[in-house]
């Protein structure tokens, strides 16, 4: 009886699958035709009554924890522009793609956005790895990518605008400040991937030049969950400062376990460069209270633009959501692009790039400017301390925006780093 039932079920399931496959194939062919027909003319984006833009972030997989909020911020900016009449008289139509925390998938989706959808520009990526993966695609297709996250520098592609911090706008000033205020002995802790390794290379050169001392350099695999051994090493070596470049999830484990080991921010200074308000929500403010971070923007940053921005964001996505540096950078990069398009009077990539150079914008973090030479942003640098409520209080900042220097050319000690 049971066997017969199973067989019957098999038949039904079979029919269903075949129907499913057929309909999908048909759907696939359907999209094919539309994709194929405008294949012949590139830069056809000015035609039609909407301007298509791509949004390319990880909506699934391990990176989704960070990237979903960034996507939300970009969507909000697009809605704002559409609500105020659109761009060049047209509405912006976002096409969202999921990079799924997988670098080749990012390359595939970037190709799709540029070749099939003919988007005017793409806002996207979070990890350096995903940016490196899509870079050749953007260069080969002469596309335009806006990248909203602080990164390790050593790059300046004409097809990318970098709206997060370059090393000299986050890491270098933070190390300088720590050497001046907190001590000379540094313990470098990072996840095992490119950003921490390159950042630490910069820090080591800087420590050497400025009289700091390197106690240890430790890397843990992505997704590492137990930091008791690392914490034990920290205890044994007694550094003045732990410079933390851990990624995402690992920060939660590290700070929870650091507190359990009886080490608070009074006993040990840590400064993190990948922990912002959004991450603090996951770590728990009580576990991170008093620890330091370095960014260009905090939710508490005191500008009229920021008050407006925070209010809008909370209204749209819920009062319990927070804004942070990458979210703000994602938000302003959409507006920066829109301003450049207005100035150029076209969405053509070459024209927009020319128009964007030197463009100024009153951002929530303060006045920012696109540096023409390397397509990074002039940004103010802020060191902050995590408060009890999970927000960050600024304790030091540069007087004005710092010029971006991705290759650290203006620092004598860094001349061997960039080759």
């Amino acid at each position, binding site marked *: 009886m049971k066997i017969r039932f*199973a067989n019957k*079920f*098999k*038949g039904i*399931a*079979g029919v269903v*699958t*075949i129907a*499913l*496959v057929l309909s*999908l*194939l048909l*759907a*696939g062919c359907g*999209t*094919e035709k539309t*994709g*194929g027909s405008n*294949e012949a003319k590139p830069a056809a984006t000015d035609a039609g009554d909407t301007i298509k833009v791509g949004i390319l972030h990880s*909506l*699934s997989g391990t990176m989704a924890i960070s990237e979903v909020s960034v996507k939300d911020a970009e969507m909000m900016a697009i809605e704002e522009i559409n609500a105020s009449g659109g761009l060049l008289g047209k509405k912006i139509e976002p096409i*969202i*793609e*999921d990079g*799924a925390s*997988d*670098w*080749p998938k990012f*390359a*595939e989706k970037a*190709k*799709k956005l540029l*070749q*099939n959808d003919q988007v005017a520009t793409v806002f996207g990526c979070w*990890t*350096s*790895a995903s940016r*490196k*993966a899509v*870079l*050749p*695609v953007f260069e*080969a*297709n002469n596309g335009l990518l806006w990248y909203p996250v602080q990164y390790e520098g*050593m790059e300046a592609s004409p097809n990318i605008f970098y709206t997060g911090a370059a090393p000299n706008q986050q890491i270098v000033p933070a190390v300088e400040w720590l050497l001046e205020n907190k001590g000379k002995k540094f313990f470098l802790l990072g996840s*095992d*991937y*490119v950003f921490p*390794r*390159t950042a630490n*290379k910069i820090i080591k050169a800087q420590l050497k030049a400025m009289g700091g001392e390197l106690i240890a350099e430790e*890397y843990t*695999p*992505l997704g590492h969950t137990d930091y008791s051994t690392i914490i034990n090493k920290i205890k044994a070596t007694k550094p003045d400062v732990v410079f933390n470049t851990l990624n995402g999830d690992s920060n939660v484990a590290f700070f929870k376990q650091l507190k359990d080991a009886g080490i608070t921010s009074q006993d040990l200074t840590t400064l993190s460069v990948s922990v912002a308000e959004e991450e603090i929500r996951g770590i728990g403010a009580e576990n991170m209270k008093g620890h330091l971070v370095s960014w260009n923007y905090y939710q508490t940053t005191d500008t009229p633009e920021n008050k407006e921005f925070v209010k809008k964001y909370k209204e749209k996505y819920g009062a319990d959501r927070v804004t942070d540096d990458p979210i703000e950078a994602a938000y302003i990069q959409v507006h920066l692009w829109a301003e450049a398009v207005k100035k150029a009077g076209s969405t053509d990539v070459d024209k927009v790039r020319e128009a964007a150079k030197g463009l100024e914008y009153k951002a929530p973090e303060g006045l920012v400017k696109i540096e023409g030479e390397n397509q990074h942003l002039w940004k103010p640098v802020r060191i902050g301390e995590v408060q009890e409520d999970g927000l960050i209080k600024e304790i030091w900042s540069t007087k004005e925006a710092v010029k971006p220097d991705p290759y650290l050319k203006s620092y004598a000690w860094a001349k061997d780093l960039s*080759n």
Partner: protein
Amino acid sequence: MLEIVAKIKEYFLKRNAVISIIFVLLCLAPLFLSDFRINLLGKFVAFAILALGIDLIWGYTGILSLGHGVFFGLGAYCMAMYLKLESSAGKVPDFMSWSGLEVMPWFWKPFASAPFALTMAILIPVLLAMIIGYLTFKNRIRGVYFTILTQALSIIFVVLFIGQQAYTGGTNGITNFKTILGFSLSDPATKLSLYYIAVLLLLAAYVFCKLIIDRRIGRVLVAIRDGENRIRFSGYNPTVYKVFVYAISAGLAGLAGAVYVPQVGIISPAEMGIIPSIEMVSWVAIGGRGTLTGAIIGAVLVNSLKSVVSESFPDIWSYFIGITFIVIVIFMPSGLVGIYQQIKKVWRNSLLLKRKEAAMKH
């Protein structure tokens, strides 16, 4: 003359109808699809080569390896090393200088030659599989234990490749290639040629696998799957056969990797991990294990489905993939090809029945 035509007709239309149709469709695809889709399809064709290898070891021999991502990755890295060296024109590749390496490591140097890289793309996976296979199969590690052991293997490789950033590019992997054998990779003509080369290699791989399974060795493999001890008692040494098929399968995975890289333009350690390895097995499971056609159909169809669904529903596509997967594994263990065969059987039976009835009436 007519006889030969009839024979050819019989061979292609009757005995190998499905696979012939597949190859004809693959060859004609560039007429209907945009450049972007052809590029995607080329990637899926590379996956199909790999799926053939997995089918040999899992579908036919009953050994589930979740470490095929490693072999795929090794093949891909060999090819990527060649492409990287060509595009950096004699200089030290960019990621090495970021990582503080001033001189090219010795083992990178020979990869400047394309034939060497291609040979290594197949040879290294084969050798690795032979060593691991010999040890584990000789010690009679079987079934689930072998599967989990291969998972450990794939973790080891991922962590090693990520950790050795100066030599492997770390998590970023190796990317930003410009040319292959002097032809620009962004040129549509190059892309089309790469696609046809991939289809051709798939055909070669198919014929190669077909040769293996149609011979006595193929029957021994199936016998190992269905009753390893009986094979042993009949005087065969299953270890030799298992090592052989594991090595072949690894070689095909390596070849697939080498075909994949120039079309996709990046290889990173993540592709060697456990999740991609499970996905690779899923293609074969959905297409139909134990049939070479099933492996090819599975690889192409599952990946097309994934692309289409993830484009239409970027937020929730995992649901579709997950549920399809559960349904197929549970209710259709022999995959899509199994359903096709079932329908054919039912149809034939009803045809026979009708004929019988007609005969009865007379």
